[in-house]
């Protein structure tokens, strides 16, 4: 990955001839703030739905179709105290299309979406704000009809501190979203955030620079904010064992949460990734083998590490009477790993699986983009597959045991059928 600066904007180049599509990303970086977390999450779709140029979904989608099925997506990224709003456009490689300047059209589309919202009296329109708030409240109602999602949402709520929770929608601050707050956050994003542009595909660098100069004629003064990328969220002080009931569920859902009090760097992240695989990250994991294949208690069980909030989580769905057996098995598994029971073959298998995963991502348009964006933010450089493979292969059972020892159980959350108490 090569960096250039155009009128102060950081442009990250990922030249590649491997794909039939190209991708451009506008990524805006700011300090994570729980109080404006809802606004930050609302802004991308608000801009998409309330735009001066593409003033209806009909016009917007027809325009994307005219760009040969270009796909527009938004997402948020957070790591420690860093937050980012990201706008992606994937479009067909120019070489397949004669006589049309798709690259310029793609840049203009992203620019129009982000910089041309409907504004009235200097503010985002009342209609847009009202619609967005109403949608968010409806979303909370919708959640209640999908019990699997509802259980996960509830678990996140319980494991987070109310004041500093960073998942969307954050009910604690939802009533504070207003026309002014949304407008202020939007203005911050376009004027004060650190803007990085990423471009992946076959293209002419000079042409890209010229296009950016045309879209951003004034120099954008910006300095990379060196926010702490480590843990943001405070953990509960005591271990909590919670149970919630619902009349309308057929199966019990359980989440077991562990805090990982660690300074995160690239090597630690790799160790966590390997540990996760061995515990419950894939079909050869200890928990999948013992709880599904040997005990037949679940259809699936998985573990995952939520890097955004430094939380290690294990989840399964089972009959309520089987929960305790499964939990006991989980704790036994973690304790045994903390005392060194990680087999050489388990480590090797996880290493090969992780390397396979990275290699696949490096041959995938979006995967390549995401790996490079993440490496850029955390290490200020592009993703290097060879270095990553070396790091993975250098990991030892002791490295993983050291991470396992840092795992501290903080919560068990059960979402079960009302009236099915097994005592």
């Amino acid at each position, binding site marked *: 990955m090569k960096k250039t600066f155009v009128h102060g904007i950081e442009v990250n180049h990922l030249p590649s001839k491997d794909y*039939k599509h190209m991708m451009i990303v506008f990524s805006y970086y700011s300090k994570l703030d729980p109080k404006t977390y809802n606004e930050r999450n609302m802004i991308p779709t608000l801009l998409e739905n309330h735009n001066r140029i593409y003033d209806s979904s009909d016009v917007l989608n027809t325009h994307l179709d005219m760009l040969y099925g270009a796909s527009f997506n938004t997402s948020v990224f957070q790591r420690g105290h860093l937050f980012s709003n990201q706008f992606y456009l994937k479009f067909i490689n120019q070489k397949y299309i004669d006589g049309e300047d798709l690259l310029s059209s793609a840049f203009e589309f992203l620019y129009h979406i982000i910089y041309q919202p409907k504004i009235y009296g200097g503010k985002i329109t009342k209609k847009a704000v009202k619609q967005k708030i109403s949608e968010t409240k409806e979303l909370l109602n919708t959640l209640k009809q999908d019990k699997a999602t509802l259980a996960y949402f509830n678990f996140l709520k319980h494991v987070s501190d109310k004041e500093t929770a960073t998942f969307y929608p954050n009910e604690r601050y939802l009533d504070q979203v207003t026309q002014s707050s949304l407008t202020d956050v939007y203005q911050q994003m376009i004027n004060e955030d650190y803007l990085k542009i990423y471009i992946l595909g076959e293209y002419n660098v000079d042409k890209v620079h010229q296009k950016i100069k045309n879209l951003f004629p004034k120099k954008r003064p910006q300095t990379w904010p060196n926010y702490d990328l480590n843990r943001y969220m405070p953990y509960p002080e005591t271990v909590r064992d919670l149970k919630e009931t619902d009349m309308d569920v057929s199966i019990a859902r359980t989440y077991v949460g562990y805090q990982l009090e660690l300074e995160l760097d690239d090597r630690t992240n790799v160790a966590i990734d390997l540990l996760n695989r061995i515990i419950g990250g894939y079909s050869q994991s200890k928990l999948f083998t013992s709880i599904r294949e040997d005990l037949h208690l679940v259809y699936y069980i998985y573990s995952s590490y939520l890097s955004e909030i430094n939380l290690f989580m294990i989840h399964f769905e089972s009959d309520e009477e089987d929960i305790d057996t499964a939990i006991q098995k989980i704790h036994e598994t973690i304790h045994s790993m903390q005392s060194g029971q990680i087999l050489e073959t388990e480590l090797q298998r996880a290493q090969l699986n992780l390397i396979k995963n990275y290699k696949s991502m490096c041959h995938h348009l979006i995967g390549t983009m995401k790996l490079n964006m993440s490496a850029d933010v955390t290490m200020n450089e592009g993703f290097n597959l060879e270095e990553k493979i070396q790091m993975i292969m250098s990991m030892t059972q002791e490295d993983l045991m050291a991470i396992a020892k840092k795992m501290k159980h903080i919560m068990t959350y059960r979402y079960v059928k009302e009236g099915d108490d097994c005592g």
Partner: protein
Amino acid sequence: MLKKVMIVVKKQILLDETLYIDTLDNGLNVYLLPKKEFVDYHISLQVRIGGQTTRYRYQDQLYTIPAGTAHFLEHVFFESNDINLSDIFSEYNADINASTSRDVTNYYVSAQDHFEMVLSMFLNHFSKAKISQVTIEKERQIILKEIKMYEDNMYYRVHEDLLKQMYTDQNVWVDIAGDERSVHAINQAIIDRTIDHFYQANNMILVITGPFDPTYVKKLVRESKINLMPKKMDSPQLIFDFQGQKDHHIYQVKPNQSVTYFALGLDIDLSMLQTLSVSQRRLAIIMFFQYFFDEGSSNYQTLKDKNLINYSYNINIHVHQDYAYFTVSSETNYPKKLKSSLMDMLMNIGHIDEDKFLAGIRGRIGHFIGYFDQSNAINHALSEFVKKGYQLEKYIDHVKHMKAADVNMIKKTIKEDAIYSMTYAKK
């Protein structure tokens, strides 16, 4: 001795993408798409048995099997012949998985190393299968838990209830995994017989994508035991009964619900489209309903402007060989108004704007080309396209030459008495 190995059919899909097709003597169709620039090999074997397979005719006899049998087989197949293919493949760093849809069961593997070994073992595994009673009982327990997981989603339930109104035939709507009763009814004899009837070479499609030489891979396939599977002349034929229920519009109050959800379905009369080929018919139906009802349509905008729908708005277009239907659904505060607006839109379809139609064609071509950007995506797309009877090499041409008038033919398949709706109202 092997016969002289030659690639039988070579088709140019894009300027820089070539598909190789081989048909074994026993009827297995093999599709090979080399992707030299990628690292992943993807192998998928599709068997024409799915959630809709509960009644069929085979060799002049009628058979009935419990709902969920295809899915049950999917669960046990990797553990047949006293080996666990998943465990063995993990030694080769290959991932193996399977899924069952309404019409097919798909087994797939992804690997980066030991491709030849993995491919041979995978294909040999399918040449015969003996499932043990222990495996059957183990997976039965796991499947029963899987079924319960899906019961907790209101959106699945509404759609299933809507289809129950539209079609009395359970093949169309029965849960792919079956229900508790049907899963308990599946036994060794049913499993053995179903394998014998459906897991035949002429009832399967093999698709392989990855960085390989197609001539060499063709040789590997022909050297594997799958090539020794006997040739059978017959394939099982499914039996459908496409009657709808008398009641077309159902309104149910659900005391525990936090939202009101509305779904409308249209049974598409395929007999009106006899002049179109299978692939043209499919394309025309999909383009028609997307044009008029997807999130880029003016109908969607109208419903949104009237506050009749929200972000949960969703359309589904299912075109099978024997039947086709369109559904549209959303959370709403005004289910009656939404129903009446949608009925009105369906019965008074407007005209097709040429510019917007052209944009839709461009979009479809771009999406198609995008499949070739990932080894797994093109593998999946190839399996789907072949299953649906598309000629891939002609797909872009077919789309390019699709006229608004062709798509407009779908209008005549819409009949008011083929429209059904289901409302789950909050109290």
